[in-house]
Each structure stands twice: as structure tokens, then as C-alpha cells.
């Protein structure tokens, strides 16, 4: 007899414990799966072992998400209780689960409720894991005291005497400098450095980690420890912070300032001060004064300055620059306050461990999170980092199988000979590919798959663990060629088996082109960190390495140019020079003229000093200025800072002018309507339009659609199907894909054409949304003997890129593809504070965990200040021109076909054309399905809409009777948010359009389409009848070296679904299967989409 799921989780026998959930679920009935969920729920409530509890939660989540919906007998449509949803948003997961289970008892199981239960259990599982890591971080020895300290009088830390200058020379405080390496991971054994994995599966948590010095090839003279942190006492009772790379400075005068992470770009420095215990976490909101606290630590009337510098190493390098910077900052603060014994020189092993533990704490405080190997730059040279089983006495004992902190084994020359190290350095080309990525979802996927023991992934994980020994042996033997092969195999094999999304089109092309350029001399590819595209390694035969450095830069630049409209890049690629750092983190005490901060520090600070009278300068400022002047006379790096310093004093306006010109040009070229824009601004400022005004009146009656209101497309109807097939054979159908958007959620506002994003592999290689849609049309054409014309509607943001790409692909295989260029454009506005508050406070928001919530609060306060200071309703122009413009909603897409002549051209080429199928670019399952086409043709309606039974993640309105009329209603137009939860069906935005009836609705006929004046007037008249919504969109602003800020900006839009509210428009509605109507809005959905069979379904619709 097969063991039950509870037995599997609790088993001490590895073979039983590691049983894959999907294997267990195979062949089970709906009732058996529901019974298993009930049993698991009872088990996880009584079980005390953390990881068993968490595994039970993941089992329930996976059954509800994947295995129940796959059961044919499960009811599809249901409702999510609104109070359960609110609990979920407020992170009250247990309450949410109770509400959903009660609803399941009352109304029976459904796909809708299964999605809600899956989401709640999934979130509770991650919350439980995160809480445990936090508790462990807090209770780690050496950290706990900081959470007890609540009053300045209790602060026991004192700055070392060596850092306090003689009283008569207050300006001459010595400078403590920490120089720290960054780390590369040769292999991380399938993300086994995630805390959760290391703490549950310590024997599988293994990393080969190398500390390196870095320089940018062609820019820096030689590699050096890239991370620098400086600490010095100052004669002012404040904390001064400066990040040289970010060009940011701040003076912290209160304790609240220290805990305000989001206010500026100095959150990392603040987290370091807190994690180092100088302003301990326990003192937050105590009402104590910072000066009082500093008086105890540094002496009366004194404070300190903390300066960071990463020597312009770009963000996202996958070399853990920020964690190692945090480590360096914490290290220098702990040295200064005698928490570690060594004031100067390298740290001892216990010292490195406590700094690493504090860095974990600092990352938690700052609301971010790294892997447990990330502070590897504190250690010297090459080391093996492994999970450690928890033993009695460890705070983790009895809670998790492994400890929070791993064990570091330094691999000295006896394990990795000097010659082998040299060979590695002579073959490796280290690069930053320039892509900006969010690794967070990947880490969640890896954790979930591990806990579910998904079959192929679990086998891959075990293979990856074994690979490490192979890699270690090859490195020790100095066989770099074989090492390159093993690393490539690891990337191609285990890593992509566990998470297919670690690779992307860019990476694949780079590997392909490196191989083409260097043939046998290209020895291998090496992924750094959580995913590829950013920091990466390419291994070459040593005699060609120098050539490869130059060539790889060219290849990367060319490939980036090719793909930059479809993949999110944060910066141009760079090639690094590197050297193994055999020191780890090292400190030095600098006095007198040696006590110099980085040259760029003076570049940024000196202009403000020079603008003031000499007598007004403080003694610190005068001292700094004098020291800098002396340094500028005889140190080249300081001499070089002088012109930049003068530039800062007399800023040039050249750059700003050209950007403004370009924006004006783009507005003019894309049909910007200045008069309409001014009207919108006036209305927005006056409060006539805004987020609150998007809503229908509160008295509006909103009712759910009744079952008889829609056609159920899942029931087969041979007659309709035959009618549809006949229409397809006659060539009466064309497909329209909305491709004007830039995937605000898909790439978090990176501004790439979503249609061109090569998001997943089909038929052996990465394909974009546009390619998939064309493949479906291609297949349809082959099946019915008539090509299906395909139109992509574009915008100023996407037109050129899509045109270029489709010219390359579509023309080659005879597809009839047209682009419909959008000629409506808006200029984004700085939002009103009123709308910001409405968005943050009046609409349902996902509550984040404690620290992230604090961070978000702080960022929001800063954004509200930005809106006030930039001017509410002012034109948003502080970004690249493309990011300042916005498309004006998909309502315009179909009317644009009429206006811009595309429809006329289509009809001219194919007069028999009767129906358009319009859909979103991310609705991958949408096809010209004969059954649905037959239904629509038989309905006699103008527009036919496809809806799907709602899941909890489907937000944005749905099908409703609004004051008695069956129509689609947008979520932002519903009078109350909870109204949405009473609606069973969610709109897919896939729409069948009867061309002639639509033209009639617009007051047009086919032969009038050539009359531009008439079509424009018809569109304008109809546009006036549909509502205009104000929305806030997150827009990225890129700056510095791969840095990004996100701003919410106001824009307006009209939506096609509102055509259902136009009285004389005849609409019909059909419910379609989830696989047809599912939209992909977020890259985090990809894994679930692949696992639930949707990807395979889409593949089955395509013809390549």
C-alpha cells in the first residue's frame, strides 16, 4: 500500500520522504485529493516541526493549484468570499484559509475556490519560512542584545580610543577604511544557498565561492577590492552618510531618520548602522534622541560619518556587491566599536562569521534578502561553503535540520594549487551582460520545487550536488577546459531542469556567438548568481583570452542592440578584469594626509564647500578641503577629480536640452493632442477626474451574470463548429493582436515591447509572444487551406521594433502580417497626492511583511513629496522621452484600424473578410477557434466576448449586469471593490468583431473607409461616448551604473470593454476554458503556466 501524504512528510526514510507529490496524485479521484487536503490541513495545524508544517502547506497549495483544476469533475465557476480576500491582502493567512474552507463546505469545491486556497496556503508557507529565518537571525548569538536595547543610556558600545583624536585637533580624526572583495560562485548546487534550503537540506547546500578583486576592462588600470567602507568620528552630534557611487549624501539628526530606509538611496548604509548595533533595532520609535545616543558611543557633541564606494561596479553584477558592501560597512562599524577584536588587518574566522550574521540581519532590515553565501567576499580566496546540521545548543536545533549560517572551509594552495588558480584567471572572461532582472521569483520557484520534490527537478538537484565535487576536482587539477565543460553542462542540465527560466534568448545567443567566433577555443559558459543575463562568465583557451575580452564586449553590445526592444536591459554590457583576492576583508587606520576618502567623495562634496565663505566652513570641512587640495597636487586620481568638480560647480545644460527636443519631436510625430492634454491636466488638478472619479455612481446596481446569459464553449456543438470551419475555409477571419504595450508588470516598467519578449522555449528555442501568435495563425492557415491575416496593433513604443522583427520572421514563410500603427499618444503627468493616497489607501493593497511594509511606507512618503515638489499634474519629463509618453488604452486599437487605413487595406486584399478576432498579446491560448467562430456568426451580434471563470488572481472587473444591462465592467469603475467578488466571470479581453456591424455602429460603410476625414470624425464621436479613466503606472527611471527608481505617474486611457455599455452595440458572451483565456501578466506566472499544462496546450496550437 502506498503511504499517505502525511506519512511521506513525516517519514525518516529518505526514499519515502522524497516522494514527489505529482507521483502520489497520479490517478487519484477528486474526492481522494480533497480528502488529502483535509488530512494535510489537520496535520499542519498539529505538527510542531517547522519544515513538516511548511511542506504540508506547499502540498495543499500544489494540489489546489494544479491537481484539483486538472480533475474533469471539478466545478469551474465559483466565488471568492471578499472577506477572505481582504484577509489575504492583510497577510492574515490563517483567517483567509478558514473563510475559504467554510465557503468550500457551503458551496462545494470549485476552480475559483481552489485558486484562493492555493494562494493562501502558498503565501502562508513562505511567510512561515521567512518568519523562521527572521527569528533565527534575531536569536543568533551576538545579534539578540540589539533587540533588547531601548534607551541610549543602555548603549554599551563605545568607539575605540584609537579613532578619537586629541581634543585640540577636532578636525583630525583618523579614518578607518575597510576594503572588501566581492564573490563569484562557481556553482551553487541549484540555488542551495537559499536560506530555506540550507536550513532544511544542509547536506545539499554546497557552494564553491571565490573572493575576487574587480575592475572594468578598458576603464580601470587593474583589479582592486571593489568594495570600500569608511568610518570616522566627526565633531557634530549627527550621522553623516555618503554613497560615492550613487552620488547621495544625507545627514541623520534623529533616530527616525536612521530607520527611514526609503527616503533616499542610502538605505544600505542605514541598515549597516542598525545591524552593527550603533543604532540598534530595539531603539526604533523609542523617542530617544540620536545626539544622546551618539554622545555615549562617540563622546559628547560628536557623531560619525560612514562612506561607501563600490568603484562604479554596475548593479546586478551577480557578484553580491551589495551584500559585500553591507558586510564591509557593518565590519568597519563593528571594528570601530570594538565588537570585533581586530581594528586593522584581516578578520578572524569568528569575526567574519558575526559580520556575516549581521549582514543577514541588515538585509532583512532593509527588506531585501540575499543568499547565505553572498557575504563570501569577507573571506579570502577560494572556499567551500556548506550547510551545517543543527546540533544541540544551536538556536536552530529542534526547529530546522540545518543552521542559519553555513560553514566556510578555506581551500588553500594545498587543495587548489597556485597554478590552478592562475589558469582559472587566465581563461575566464567575466562580464555583466547588462540585463536587469528580478531574481526573487526564481528563488521562490526553487524553494517550492524542492519542498514538493518534483520528480525531474529533484533528480536535477541531486545531480547538481554531485556536480560540485566534479567541479572541485577539475579546479584542483587545473583542468580549466574540462571545468568549462562541466559548468556549461551544469547550466544546460540541472539548473535549467530545476528552473527553465534561468536562461533567456540573450544568453543563448551569446553562447552561440561565442562558440561561432572561437570554436574549440571557447571552453564553456558559467552562470553567476540566480539567473543569467547579468553577471556571467565565459571560459576560453588562455592564448585567446585577451582577444575574447574585446570580442565578447562587441558580441554583447551587438546582441544587446538587437534585443533591447524585447528584453529589459539596465545598461550597456561590460567586461571585467578580475583577480582572486587572497586577503578577504581588510581594514587600515589612516591618519593625517593619508586619511583620504575616495576622490569622488570630494568631487561631490567640495563644490558646496567652495560656494561658501572660508570662515563659514566647519573645522571638519576645512580639514577635508585642505587634505584634498594637498592630495590633488601629487596623487593622480585626485588631480583627475578636479575638472569633474569644476563641472559640478558650473553644470552644463546640453544633455537636458536634447532630451526635451526629442520628447517634443516624438509628441509631434505620434499625434499628441495638446489641447486635450491641457484639458485633462486642468480636470485632474481641479479634481474633476482622478482615481476616485473612475468609479460608477454608488447607486449603480451591480449583479452577477446568470448561467443563461452566456454561451458555454466547453460543450461541443458540431453544427457551430462546422459553420466556423467553413468560414475559415472561405477566409472570412483575421486576427488582431494588441501589441502596443510595454508590459508594465511584465518587466516592472522597463519599457520593452512585450510582444517581442522571448519569454519561453517552444520547439527548442526561446520565442516571443508575437512569434507564438503567428505560429497559431500559421497552423490555422495550414489546417483550413486559407492563410489567416494577422494584424499587430502598435504604438510609438513598439512600432519600430515590431516592424523590424516581423520583417525578419514573417515575410520568410508567407504569412500575411500587417501592422496598425497607433496614432494616439498621451504625455504622462506627475500624479496628484490625492490620487497617490487613493491608490495606496483606498484600493485593496497587498500588505507586505513587516520590514518590507516599513520600507514601502517610507518610499511612499518620499514619492508624495516628489509629487508635491515636482508639481501635481505637471508634465512628467524627468525621464527618457519614451518613458514620458503613454499609449492611451486599448479602446483605440480597433478604431485605429479604421482610421489608419489598415482595415481598408485588409478588406481590399480580402473582400470576403467578415470577422476579426482581437486579443491581448499575452492571451496565448486565443485562436480563431472554429467552434467559437461558429457561435459568434450564429449570434448576429456586433461584438462577441470571451470570459473565464474567475480565479483569485483575476482582478480588473468582469461580466456583470449593470443597472440591468449585461456588460463588461472594469474593476476601476466598480462602485465598491467588493462588487468584483460577486462576479463569477472575468474578461479575457478577447473579442470577436463583426466588421460590417461595427462599421455601422460607427456610422460607416466599407466604401467610406478610404475617407480619412469621415473615419476620423466617426471615431471621435464614438470615443466621446466611452469613459476616460485616470490610472497610475509605475515607470522606471534608470541612472548611474545600472540603478533604477520606480515612479508612479498619472496617465489616462479608454478601454475597449466599455463598448459593451454602448446601448446600440449588440454583444454576446461566451465562457471559455482557462487555457484559452489565461493572460500572462507577470513573469512569476511562467512556472505555474508551464506546470499546469498551459504551455503544452499553447504549443499544441502552434505550427512552426
Amino acid at each position, binding site marked *: 500500500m502506498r503511504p499517505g501524504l502525511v506519512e511521506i512528510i513525516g517519514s525518516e526514510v529518505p526514499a519515502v520522504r522524497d516522494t514527489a507529490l505529482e507521483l502520489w496524485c497520479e490517478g487519484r479521484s477528486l474526492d481522494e485529493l480533497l480528502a488529502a487536503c483535509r488530512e494535510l490541513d489537520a496535520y499542519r495545524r498539529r505538527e510542531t516541526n517547522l519544515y513538516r508544517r511548511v511542506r504540508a502547506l506547499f502540498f495543499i497549495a500544489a494540489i489546489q493549484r494544479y491537481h484539483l483544476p486538472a480533475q474533469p469533475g471539478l466545478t469551474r465557476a465559483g466565488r471568492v468570499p471578499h472577506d477572505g480576500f481582504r484577509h489575504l491582502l492583510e497577510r492574515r493567512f490563517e483567517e483567509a484559509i478558514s473563510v475559504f474552507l467554510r465557503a468550500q463546505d457551503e458551496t462545494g469545491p470549485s476552480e475559483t475556490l481552489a485558486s484562493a486556497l492555493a494562494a493562501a496556503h502558498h503565501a502562508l508557507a513562505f511567510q512561515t519560512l521567512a518568519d523562521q529565518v527572521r527569528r533565527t537571525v534575531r536569536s543568533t*548569538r*551576538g*545579534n*539578540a*542584545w*540589539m533587540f*533588547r*536595547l531601548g534607551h541610549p*543610556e*543602555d*548603549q*554599551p*558600545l*563605545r568607539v575605540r580610543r584609537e579613532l578619537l583624536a586629541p581634543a585640540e585637533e577636532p578636525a583630525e580624526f583618523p579614518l578607518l577604511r575597510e576594503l572588501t572583495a566581492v564573490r563569484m560562485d562557481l556553482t551553487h548546487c541549484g540555488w542551495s544557498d537559499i536560506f530555506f534550503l540550507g536550513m532544511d537540506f544542509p547536506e545539499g547546500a554546497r557552494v564553491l565561492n571565490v573572493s575576487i578583486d574587480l575592475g572594468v576592462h578598458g576603464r580601470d588600470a587593474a583589479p582592486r577590492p571593489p568594495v570600500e567602507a569608511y568610518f570616522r568620528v566627526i565633531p557634530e552630534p549627527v550621522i553623516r552618510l555618503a554613497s560615492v557611487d550613487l552620488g547621495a549624501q544625507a545627514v541623520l539628526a534623529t533616530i527616525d531618520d536612521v530607520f527611514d530606509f526609503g527616503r533616499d538611496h542610502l538605505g544600505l548604509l542605514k541598515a549597516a548602522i542598525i545591524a552593527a*548595533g550603533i543604532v540598534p533595532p530595539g531603539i526604533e520609535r523609542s523617542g530617544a534622541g540620536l545626539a544622546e545616543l551618539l554622545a555615549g558611543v562617540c563622546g559628547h557633541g560628536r557623531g560619525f560619518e560612514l562612506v561607501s564606494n563600490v568603484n562604479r561596479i554596475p548593479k546586478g553584477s551577480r557578484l553580491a556587491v551589495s551584500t559585500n558592501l553591507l558586510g564591509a560597512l557593518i565590519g568597519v562599524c*563593528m571594528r570601530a*566599536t*570594538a*565588537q*570585533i577584536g581586530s581594528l586593522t588587518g584581516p578578520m578572524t574566522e*569568528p569575526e567574519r562569521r*558575526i559580520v556575516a550574521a549581521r549582514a543577514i540581519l541588515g538585509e532583512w532590515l532593509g527588506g531585501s534578502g540575499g543568499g547565505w553565501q553572498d557575504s563570501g567576499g569577507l573571506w579570502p580566496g577560494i572556499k567551500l561553503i556548506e550547510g551545517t546540521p543543527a546540533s544541540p545548543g544551536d538556536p536552530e536545533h529542534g526547529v530546522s535540520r540545518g543552521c542559519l549560517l553555513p560553514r566556510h572551509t578555506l581551500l588553500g594552495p594545498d587543495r587548489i594549487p597556485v597554478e590552478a588558480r592562475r589558469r582559472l584567471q587566465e581563461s575566464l572572461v567575466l562580464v555583466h551582460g547588462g540585463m536587469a532582472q528580478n531574481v526573487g521569483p526564481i528563488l521562490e520557484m526553487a524553494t517550492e520545487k524542492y519542498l514538493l520534490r518534483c520528480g525531474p527537478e529533484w533528480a536535477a538537484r541531486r545531480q547538481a550536488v554531485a556536480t560540485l565535487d566534479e567541479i572541485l576536482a577539475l579546479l584542483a587539477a587545473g583542468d580549466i577546459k574540462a571545468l568549462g565543460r562541466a559548468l556549461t553542462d551544469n547550466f544546460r542540465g540541472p539548473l535549467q531542469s530545476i528552473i527553465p527560466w534561468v536562461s533567456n534568448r540573450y544568453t543563448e545567443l551569446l553562447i552561440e556567438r561565442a562558440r561561432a567566433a572561437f570554436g574549440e577555443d571557447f571552453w564553456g559558459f558559467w552562470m553567476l548568481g540566480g539567473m543569467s543575463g547579468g553577471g556571467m562568465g565565459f571560459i576560453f583557451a588562455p592564448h585567446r583570452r585577451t582577444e575574447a575580452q574585446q570580442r565578447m564586449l562587441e558580441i554583447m553590445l551587438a546582441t544587446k542592440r538587437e534585443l533591447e526592444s524585447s528584453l529589459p536591459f539596465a545598461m550597456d554590457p561590460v567586461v571585467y578584469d578580475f583577480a582572486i583576492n587572497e586577503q578577504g576583508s581588510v581594514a587600515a587606520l589612516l591618519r593625517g594626509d593619508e586619511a583620504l576618502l575616495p576622490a569622488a567623495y570630494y568631487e561631490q562634496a567640495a563644490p558646496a564647500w567652495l560656494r561658501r565663505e572660508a570662515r563659514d566652513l566647519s573645522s571638519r570641512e576645512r580639514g577635508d578641503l585642505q587634505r584634498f587640495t594637498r592630495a590633488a597636487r601629487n596623487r593622480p586620481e585626485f588631480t583627475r577629480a578636479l575638472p569633474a568638480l569644476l563641472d559640478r560647480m558650473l553644470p552644463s545644460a546640453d544633455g537636458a536640452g536634447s532630451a526635451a527636443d526629442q520628447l517634443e519631436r516624438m509628441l509631434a510625430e505620434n499625434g499628441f493632442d495638446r489641447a486635450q492634454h491641457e484639458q485633462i491636466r486642468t480636470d485632474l488638478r481641479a479634481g474633476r477626474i482622478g482615481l476616485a472619479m473612475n468609479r460608477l455612481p454608488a447607486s449603480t446596481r451591480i449583479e452577477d451574470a446568470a448561467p443563461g446569459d452566456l454561451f458555454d464553449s466547453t460543450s461541443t456543438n458540431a453544427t457551430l463548429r462546422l459553420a466556423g470551419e467553413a468560414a475559415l475555409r472561405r477566409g472570412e477571419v483575421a486576427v488582431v493582436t494588441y501589441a502596443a504595450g510595454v508590459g508594465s508588470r511584465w518587466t516592472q516598467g522597463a519599457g520593452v515591447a512585450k510582444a517581442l519578449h522571448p519569454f519561453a522555449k517552444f520547439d527548442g528555442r526561446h520565442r516571443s509572444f508575437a512569434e507564438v501568435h503567428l505560429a497559431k495563425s500559421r497552423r490555422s492557415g495550414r489546417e483550413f487551406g486559407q492563410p489567416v491575416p494577422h494584424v499587430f496593433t502598435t504604438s510609438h513604443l513598439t512600432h519600430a521594433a515590431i516592424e523590424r522583427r516581423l520583417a525578419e520572421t514573417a515575410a520568410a514563410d508567407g504569412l500575411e502580417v500587417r501592422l496598425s500603427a497607433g496614432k494616439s499618444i498621451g504625455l504622462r503627468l506627475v500624479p496628484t497626492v490625492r490620487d497617490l493616497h487613493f491608490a495606496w489607501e483606498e484600493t485593496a493593497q497587498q500588505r507586505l511583511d513587516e520590514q518590507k511594509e516599513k520600507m514601502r511606507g517610507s518610499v511612499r512618503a518620499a514619492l508624495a513629496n516628489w509629487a508635491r515638489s515636482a508639481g501635481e499634474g505637471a508634465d512628467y519629463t524627468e525621464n527618457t522621452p519614451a518613458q514620458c509618453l503613454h499609449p492611451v488604452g486599448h479602446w483605440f486599437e480597433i478604431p485605429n484600424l479604421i482610421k489608419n487605413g489598415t482595415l481598408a487595406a485588409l478588406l481590399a486584399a480580402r473582400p470576403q473578410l467578415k470577422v476579426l478576432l482581437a486579443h491581448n498579446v499575452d492571451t496565448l491560448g486565443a485562436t480563431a477557434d472554429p467552434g467559437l467562430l461558429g457561435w459568434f456568426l450564429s449570434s448576429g451580434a456586433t461584438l462577441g466576448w470571451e470570459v473565464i471563470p474567475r480565479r483569485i488572481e483575476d482582478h480588473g472587473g468582469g461580466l456583470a449586469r449593470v443597472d440591468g444591462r449585461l456588460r463588461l465592467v472594469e474593476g476601476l469603475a466598480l462602485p465598491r471593490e467588493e462588487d468584483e467578488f460577486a462576479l463569477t466571470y472575468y474578461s479575457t479581453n478577447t473579442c470577436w468583431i463583426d466588421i460590417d456591424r461595427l462599421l455601422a455602429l460607427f456610422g460607416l460603410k466599407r466604401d467610406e473607409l478610404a475617407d480619412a476625414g469621415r473615419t476620423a470624425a466617426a471615431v471621435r464621436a464614438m470615443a466621446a461616448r466611452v469613459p476616460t479613466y485616470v490610472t497610475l503606472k509605475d515607470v522606471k527611471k534608470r541612472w548611474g551604473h545600472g540603478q533604477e527608481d520606480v515612479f508612479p505617474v498619472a496617465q489616462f486611457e479608454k478601454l475597449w470593454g466599455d463598448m459593451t455599455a454602448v446601448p446600440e452595440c449588440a454583444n454576446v458572451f461566451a465562457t471559455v476554458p482557462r487555457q484559452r483565456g489565461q493572460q500572462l501578466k507577470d513573469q512569476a506566472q511562467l512556472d505555474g503556466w508551464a506546470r499546469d499544462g498551459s504551455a503544452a496546450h499553447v504549443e499544441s496550437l502552434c505550427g512552426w
Partner: protein
Amino acid sequence: MKIRKVLVTAANPRQRTLPLQTLIDPRGEPKSALQVVLEEAAGAGIEEFGVVVCPGDESAYAEACGALRDRVRFIPQPAARGYGHAVLCGRSFIGDEPFLHLVGDHLPVSHTATSCARQLIEVAVAEDATVSAVQPTRESQLTAFGAVGGRLVGGERPLYQVESVLEKPTPTVAEQQLIVPGLRAGFYLCFFGMHVLGPEVFGLLEELGRAEPDRPLGLSPALHLLAARRRHLALSVAGRRFDIGAPYGLLFAQLALSLSGRDRDRVLTQLVELLATRAD
């Protein structure tokens, strides 16, 4: 084992006048701090008194010894080379026998009829071991004292086996190395300024002094070594020590002495009056 001698260190050049400060003892008699310390020892049965002082302080200190003046031998510390070095200066006075060691800037106040020094000596004699008096101290004051890590021996007394000794640790270090099971969270066993030491401590001090001749020599490193080599116990004495060198230390010591003696009501009354009439 008999403890006959006491070695008092009072040679801190920055605190030369501290032992000379006058306090009122629990019986209402004015005494110097040094005299209070020496009488603590005398009350515990000590017969010979040695005080390590800065050169030149002998006569002033002799004046401050009260009735014990003639029984005290002053030992000058030629140069300020650390607390451990001051103890080492007493080697010839102590000779080859166990002794009581007190610091001149800490005043002990017992919570029982038995003085702190007597409590300590009784345990040392009973256990035939080196014993340091300790007091559970909040982590916020850790950086003012030496502290020990170890485990409870058991039995009726709050007696601990010392495993490590660190001088003025930060709480970061203390949490990693000095956790003592059974103590309240955030409390550590810190020195009371009172030890019963064997003569072997001099050998250890000498060894450490030779290893790092240029650094000030502390007592805690020697006690740390001692704990690794011999049985070293720590007794949480029923009393409190007052560091008169700390800000307001002398005031608190005086209050503690007064409130434990004859003039308790008088002092309390004055305090209440002070509290009630505070001017803005």
C-alpha cells in the same frame, strides 16, 4: 587552606585620589574608601594587608588607612603597565600562598550579615579553589567590567565553573562566548573586584607579560588561562559592588552604605525632601 593576606590594587594613575575619598560607613563613621576596602578584608579574617600604589602615594594613602595603618604594606608600581602588572607587583608580598585580592575603586556592600569578602573566602576554603566574586550585570554595563562565561556547579550556592574570562567585552562578543545557562537574558556574570587567587596567577601574568611586553597587562587574560588549566570558580555573592570610579559612582556607593546602616531613615528623608523641592 587559609587566606591570610589581601592584595589591594590602587595604582591607577587616572584615579589616584579615589581611595582617599571620604564616605560615611553604615555605622555613621566617616572613613576613606580605602579604609572601607581594608576593613572588608579585615572583617573576613585577613591578617596582612598589601596595597599597590603609584610611587609617591604611600604617605597620603597611609593617612587614609585608619586603624589598620600600621598593618598595611605599600607596594609601589613603578610604571602604569596595566592592572595585571599591578597584581604582579604584589608577588613578593604574597609569596607562595593563596590570597584575597580586592580593587581599590570598588566598594562592596553585603545583602546579608556576612560580608562579601567572608562569603568568598568561605567558598574558596571549602572548595579549595580559585574563586572570583561575580555579580549578574546587565549587558548595558558589560563594557565596564571583566566578565566570565561558564556553567552552574549546582548545590546550594550560586557557584559557577568558569570556562572563559574576557575583559570589558561588547555584548556582541559576550553573547557568543559568555552565555551562562540559568541567567536572565541580557545578564552576564561580571567581576565584583574581589578574588581569592592562588600564587600561580603570578606565573601566568609573567608569561603573558613576556609574550606582549609592549601592551598593558590585564588580569582577565591571566584568569582566562587559569580557567583552562585549573579549577576556577565564580561565586555570585549576596551583595553589590559599587564602582566609585564611574560617573556618580561615589554617590551611589555612599547611598548604598547609608541605606544599609544606622542613618537609613535620615538619608531617605533627605532624599524625599530633595525630590520634593527640586527647582526648575
